[in-house]
């Protein structure tokens, strides 16, 4: 976390730099079926974040050593396009993208009924086209819609959102400026129906009360996003989801 505490990011009325109040998320748009050649796909525009997810499979898993005898493996790749950031991002995997790919795969494996497809592989490709802050959350959300769009059986949909702290105040869904000056970040992946958590990270400094507030903001944010996911899937799949 940057921790430049002297920069005022929230005014005396509790209004943030982009006009939101503490508990508001950025404007969200979701579309499904955006990549014609994929088995399933989705686009999430979350504030300025623009993330695309494509799903291919289930298909034969190769090399054979990656196969699981009792279930499918989720082969998840999170990647930032070279033009997604202010300074050009050099192509290729780095430690950050590998870690995000790993925790995203583990989150999604929890809801996908992988045991229906033993020895196979489901490819989930997440591409960040424009990054603002919270790309891993937008990526998990997009992947969830893409899996559903591909007709992969799942027990639940995962929505991911992060809350954090700026100027000592807990706020939901930090944008880039807030993230740069933020003092904490708590991204969570929450199942829409069960409310279970399948993804959790945190860095920074939160008191027990602040932590609870951040947790609650995240839990309260997912409902409206879940509705957008369902609308997108219904639109892309002719009224049925």
């Amino acid at each position, binding site marked *: 976390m940057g921790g430049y505490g002297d920069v005022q990011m929230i005014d005396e009325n509790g209004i943030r730099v982009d006009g939101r109040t503490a508990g508001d998320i950025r404007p969200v748009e979701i579309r499904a079926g955006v990549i014609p*050649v994929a088995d399933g796909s989705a686009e999430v525009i979350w504030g300025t974040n623009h993330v695309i997810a494509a799903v*291919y499979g289930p298909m034969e898993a190769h090399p054979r050593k990656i196969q699981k005898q009792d279930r499918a493996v989720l082969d998840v790749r999170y990647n930032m396009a070279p*033009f997604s950031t202010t300074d050009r991002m050099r192509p290729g995997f780095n430690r950050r993208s590998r870690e995000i790919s790993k925790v995203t795969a583990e989150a999604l494996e929890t809801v996908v009924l992988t045991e229906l497809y033993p020895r196979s592989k489901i490819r989930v490709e997440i591409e960040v086209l424009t990054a603002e802050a919270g790309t891993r959350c937008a990526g998990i959300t997009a992947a969830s819609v893409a899996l559903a769009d591909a007709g992969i059986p799942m027990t639940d949909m995962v929505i991911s959102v992060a809350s954090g702290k700026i100027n000592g105040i807990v706020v939901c869904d930090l944008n880039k400026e807030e993230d740069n000056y933020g003092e904490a970040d708590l991204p969570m992946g929450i199942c829409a129906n069960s409310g279970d958590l399948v993804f959790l990270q945190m860095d920074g400094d939160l008191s027990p009360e602040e932590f609870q507030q951040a947790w609650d903001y995240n839990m309260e944010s997912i409902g409206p996003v879940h509705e957008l996911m369902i609308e997108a899937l219904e639109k892309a799949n002719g009224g049925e989801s």
Partner: protein
Amino acid sequence: MAAPPVPELLRAHLTELAKNDERLDGRGRFEGREVQIETGVLPRAEGSARVVMGDTIVLAGVKFQIMTPYPDRPTSGGFMTSAEVRPVSGVHWEAGPPSPAAIELGRVVDRGIRESGCLDMSDLCILPGEKAWQVILDVFALSDDGNLFDAFATAAMAALRTAIIPGERFDVGEDRPLPVTKKPMMCSYHRVGGRFVYDAVRREEIGGAERIHITLGDDDHVHSLQKGLKGAFTADEFAEIMDHARQRCAELRNMIE
């Protein structure tokens, strides 16, 4: 009839169609798919475009960096093209370092732009011998249903023509448009069912043979050629597609600002 999935059968099917001068999607031999070009689609890029040709969708983004000029050309900036065909764009594209196919794509697109001289490298000099702009063009496939070459080249030109040199952000003068004086355009042809067709879809690429890429500048000057994959063609065949390329490149050029 749907195209057969087995390559041998697909080839036979394409040959059968070619006998009646037909194609998989009902297009004429030299008829391209509808091309949609949209610019300004990537807020973090200094110039950008999305090109949609049927089910093929690509993006191009232009970024700038400050470089030290090469010792033998102290008053010149630089230009670099990088093509990424990430596995998001099709089941046949795999993860890992750029494949030879992706590298060829980037290099052919790069040559057409570079050799046309549409970018004035000396205009990119900031301080001779010390500082110059490097223009980095990233072309990125989102959905590959064939002919990424032309989609990339078209998106590249549209993105470059709208690029703004970010002088203020790098503290080296004012923001200004990147001068791009010409519009080199690419047309690609694949041998499908024994004869060349323009703007092949993915299944025509799979069931086809060699391909030829032609980049023509303003006034029909030739700036880059590439023959790819196994196969031989005659001088007459080349003359025929070159004729078509002249006409089609002019049409594409008019679609770009």
